[in-house]
């Protein structure tokens, strides 16, 4: 599903956020990206979502080399990927329902289909009773569930989450992780970046440890 080959990202003044990263994530896998702040977790997710382009190496997702996609192809690729961020990234002026259906609306889906699919996914995350609420009227956990619903509404093959429980208390974090487990159980590849070791231990899936932009725990020659 995801393969990086010699992937590197260099910011100004020669700062290597990622360095010669070779990583493979199989289709349907649930992978935690972990490591200290600045290890390159978020950078890798940004490269996978094509918010940034790699400085060197390749990122191959579903057989497509992301570095070679045109601007329009990038948009088409993003429609196959769901994303969840620590700060939820909800539109404050839109209701819960609109925040989710928005992702379908901008794809030109017929209104009736938009409504049906949005309701289904909001029901799945347990928010069918908050359809008309604004984001500011929701708790952190509820806002993150709206973000997850938006990520899933397009039925993506891949879900990326960057510190999705960073703003939540431990109970809500477990609740959100359960949702990710359910998403993965339906065959969707899930990549979650987090530094919460307790949560990783509780979920118990494959862990990719990053340090200084490289895979950690490997002999120097294998990095």
């Amino acid at each position, binding site marked *: 599903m995801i393969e990086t080959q010699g992937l590197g990202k260099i910011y100004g003044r020669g700062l290597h956020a990622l360095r010669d990263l070779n990583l493979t994530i199989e289709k349907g896998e649930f992978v935690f990206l972990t490591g200290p702040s600045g290890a390159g977790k978020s950078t890798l997710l940004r490269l996978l*979502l094509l*918010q940034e382009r790699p400085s060197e190496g390749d990122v191959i997702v579903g057989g497509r080399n992301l570095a070679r996609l045109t*601007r*329009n192809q*990038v*948009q*088409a*690729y*993003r*429609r*196959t*990927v769901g*994303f969840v961020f620590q700060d939820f*990234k909800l*539109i*404050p002026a839109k209701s819960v329902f609109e925040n989710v259906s*928005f*992702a379908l*609306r*901008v*794809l*030109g889906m017929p*209104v009736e289909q938009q409504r049906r699919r949005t309701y289904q996914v909001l029901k799945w995350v347990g928010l069918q009773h908050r359809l008309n609420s604004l984001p500011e009227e929701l708790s952190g956990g509820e806002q993150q569930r709206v973000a997850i619903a*938006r990520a899933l509404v*397009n039925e993506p093959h891949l879900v990326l989450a960057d510190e999705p429980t960073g703003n939540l208390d431990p109970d809500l974090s477990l609740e959100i992780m359960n949702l990710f487990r359910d998403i993965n159980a339906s065959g969707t590849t899930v990549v979650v970046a987090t530094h919460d070791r307790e949560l990783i231990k509780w979920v118990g899936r494959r862990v990719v440890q990053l340090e200084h932009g490289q895979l950690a725990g490997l002999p120097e020659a294998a990095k």
Partner: protein
Amino acid sequence: MNVVGYAFEEAWASVRRAGRSAAVSIGTIAIAFLTLGGFMLVSVNVQRVLDRWLESAEVSVYLYDDLSDELRAELETYVRQQPAVAAVEYVSKDKALERFRADFPELLDVTSSVAQNPFPAAFEVRLRPDATGTAAVDDLTTGLAGRDGVADVRYDRRWLTRLAGLVTTAQVAAGVVAAVLMLGAAFTVAAVVRLSLHARREELDIMQLVGAPFSYIRGPFMVEGLLLGGVGAAVAVAGIALLFTGISRWLGSDLAGLMGTGQVHFLGLREVAIMLFGGLGVGAAAGTVASRSAR
């Protein structure tokens, strides 16, 4: 909902949100197009007067007083045979004096005080409508100027053509002024569209992340410019119509008499279309330029 419906819905919501800045934008577009429309209104009426004058332009062939009747008849035959000529009228010295007295009764003393009739006899040559300004007329005037008995040949159209040239220059200058104003208006529209783009920056980022096509991301801003420009131009057309109605009521008959056209004319369908489509075009162009920062 398709992309066009989405773009119009979002653009309309954005214009309503923008409120005062949208009103300023519409106002600047309206002022620019009011200026353009004013120029066009004057231009349309001046052009009508010029066209009428040009159509009725005559060649006057002044004759020497000592011209014999035979030579005069020969000259008249020559003129009538020319392809550019529609009609010829002989105006004798006495008839010319009579006309002058009838046209300028206040100058009767002047004509009475001179011993002899100072007006020359002349042929007034009316040209065929399709011949005015052509080489055939030039041939006619050149040919007549060199003939015996002809004192002078005057062709009205020459100075009318010069006048038309001046009017064209004025029209071009007015067009340049209007273009500069429109450019300013376009910058205002672009600034307003950019403001609404910044107000929705977060929403745009999310649209990009969910993979919205660029037509959905940029379309609303292009349509917002289109709406601002179109409404501005429509306001300008309405303003011109109001001004025209007012001026026609107060000064219409005086102006019409001055121009000799019977009545002052409003903008034609073509000019109104130029203004409206111009407004839409300027607005859409400004919106398109502004929307390019949504990437």
